[in-house]
């Protein structure tokens, strides 16, 4: 019997956001990455348009992060000693974007300086032609001290500056405005908080097609269901026409995963947890795939094997089936 395919009708769409600028556009990137634009829920190709695939950002750090699991450091090898080499390795591993995380302390153990942060950022820009996200350590005052000179030194590159939160978004947004960059706006797993921050950022005059929202998530087993549902609710609201939710979403699946005991700890854990390396990668992949299904436009990952697996999953999810 012929069954009519049930299609939801949506009035809204996610904004398109382009990260990076080529030489012709005032930057130096080899390519740019555009995300968003969807007029339907994730991967519902049969009822709407999904012009851009979700992308993978690979997290690197301005100097060897000794607090990272050695599973990660071993996988990246010597590349992890130098942000430029690391950026190249990340590109080879299949990154669409590079996310440079600035550690609070420099390689010498002293607090990071604005000069060294700018140097690291420029080194990464030179080493890889991929568009860049730069995330400061997450301490309001220090973040401002670092991000403003970075924004100025890289004017026109359309870098995503992070992390703009309710307590410190002003300086970061102003730096993005003045230097043709974007911001990533983070709120704590709540639809209304996310909307509110987007409104505040918009009120400062930054066009919303230069804002990505990070609704925060927990890793698998550590609150992923909250992030998952907040993202579904944000995306549903966006499709129903709520302008302040119509921003692409970024989730730091790698960061959250590699905080968990399941990923970090190999000894003294229950035998039922199985092989450590395989488990850690599974944890990151399951977290990332579940969040892609709930609407992530950028997933930030850490392990090279996770990158390959999540990329394969996105390929399959974006393969538009033949009509019918």
């Amino acid at each position: 019997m012929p069954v009519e395919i049930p299609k939801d009708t949506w009035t809204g769409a996610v904004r398109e956001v382009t990260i990076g600028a080529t030489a012709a556009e005032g930057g130096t990137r080899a390519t740019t990455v555009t995300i968003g634009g969807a007029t339907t829920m994730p991967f519902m190709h049969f009822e709407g348009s999904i012009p851009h695939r979700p992308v993978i950002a690979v997290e690197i750090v301005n100097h060897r992060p000794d607090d990272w699991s050695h599973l990660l450091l071993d996988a990246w090898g010597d590349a992890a000693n130098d942000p430029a080499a690391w950026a190249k390795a990340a590109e080879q591993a299949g990154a669409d974007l590079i996310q440079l995380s600035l550690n609070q302390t420099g390689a010498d153990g002293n607090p990071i300086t604005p000069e060294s942060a700018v140097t690291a950022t420029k080194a990464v820009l030179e080493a890889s032609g991929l568009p860049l996200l730069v995330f400061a350590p997450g301490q309001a005052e220090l973040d401002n001290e670092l991000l403003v000179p970075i924004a100025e030194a890289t004017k026109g590159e359309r870098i995503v500056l992070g992390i703009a939160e309710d307590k410190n978004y002003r300086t970061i947004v102003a730096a993005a405005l003045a230097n043709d960059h974007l911001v990533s706006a983070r709120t704590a797993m709540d639809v209304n908080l996310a909307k509110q921050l987007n409104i505040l950022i918009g009120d400062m005059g930054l066009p919303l097609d230069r804002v990505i929202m990070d609704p925060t998530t927990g890793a698998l087993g550590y609150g992923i269901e909250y992030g998952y549902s907040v993202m579904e609710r944000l995306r549903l609201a966006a499709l129903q026409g709520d302008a302040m939710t119509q921003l692409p979403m970024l989730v730091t699946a790698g960061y959250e995963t590699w905080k968990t005991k399941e990923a970090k700890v190999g000894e003294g854990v229950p035998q039922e947890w199985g092989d450590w390396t395989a488990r850690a990668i599974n944890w990151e992949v399951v977290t990332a795939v579940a969040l892609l299904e709930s609407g992530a436009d950028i997933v930030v990952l850490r392990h090279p094997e996770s990158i390959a697996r999540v990329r394969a999953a996105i390929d399959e999810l974006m393969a538009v089936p033949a009509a019918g």
Partner: protein
Amino acid sequence: MALTGIQIYKLLPQTNCKDCGFPTCLAFAMKLAAKQVELSSCPHVSEEAQAQLAESAAPPIRLVTLKANGHEVKAGNETVMFRHEKTFYHKTGLFVRVRDDEGPDAIKARVAPADAYAVNYVGMDLTLDGFAVESASNDPAQFEAAIAAVRSASQRPIILISRDPAVMAAGLKALDGESPLIYGADAANWEAMAALAGQHSAPLAVIGATLDELADLTQKIQGAGVEDMVLHPVATTLGASLALNTQIRRLALKKNFRPLGYPLIAFAGNDPVGETIAATQAIAKYAGFVVLDHFAPETVYSLLVLRENIYTDPQKPIQVQPGVYEINNPKPEDPVMVTTNFSITYFSVANEIEGAGLPGWLLVTDAEGMSVLTAWAAGKFDAERIAKAVKQFSIADKVSKKRIVLPGHVAVLSGELEEELPDWEVRVGPREAVDLPAFMKQAL
């Protein structure tokens, strides 16, 4: 089509007799419309009304139960597309597949550890649900031997896989008295398979690549008297599978389309890497049963936890047991920190301390599963409750230094807590868990 509360009310006796447990017939009608009660709760409803209401009262996705030796796995009866709209009810059943050409010994060796597998997650023991036995040989005797091998190592429910009715009949005979899932019926064999399902009162999986094909088959099979069905929309990519599962769920829930109002089964594929990803999607997006080809603890653990997370009722937060949690083998001189029993709060705090490698005693108070600020605002996390927990769990006997660290968000409680615990030093810690390691290193 589903009836509204008012339409249902008109069919009820309208006597407000309260025998159903609700104060009025209208209240009962509203509950019926929301599918939260069964019509059978009303002892006075007329036969005529019953017939009219039966259609409306039936759940839009039929509840199907696989049974064996005291074990049950249920799927169906779901009511929403997105978990935040209410909740997902029947956790996806996870099954591991064996093939009869592996031989009985190899089968037993694969089934036994998977059957015994139990992993603790926030105080719950999570396990697999059963096994799928496939006839690769197409030989009834070999199929029976494989089933016997599974049964020698596990009493859990079974999914029987063969398209050949003669082989399936042998399998069903071997599981007499159980309700295994028969997999399955297709356009070629449905009549014989439906007959077997009827004889053995076993649910029948229906296989089809399109909605049309599936709806065709379920209607024919229902016509043959079989009510309990499970759908396998066959797709070759993750995207196609997601689309089919979503379309079927929508038709059942939003259009009350009976021919597709059944739970779904998914096969995660035979590549171990792709299997994890396919199973992740199947758990999140609507599968009632998932069949895995491999049993590896590191994979099964992640899938069982995902299932637990997705099927958590959003209105009932997961709680951890109040008590004293020892992190990184603390010694008596190590600090005592206090937090609430909301699982995410607990994990955030415990993870930061554990991840930093710092030893400490974490006192988890009963805040009825709320986070620090919410619990404080609701009066579930105050000086009195914290002091009560300190005494109840005798933390003073474990430490040499009576010093307790409060979350920064409830700094306001420090004065009261000093009054409640006069021989303790009360310190105010950081507001966010992420700042705890630095605080512990610098201030303690």
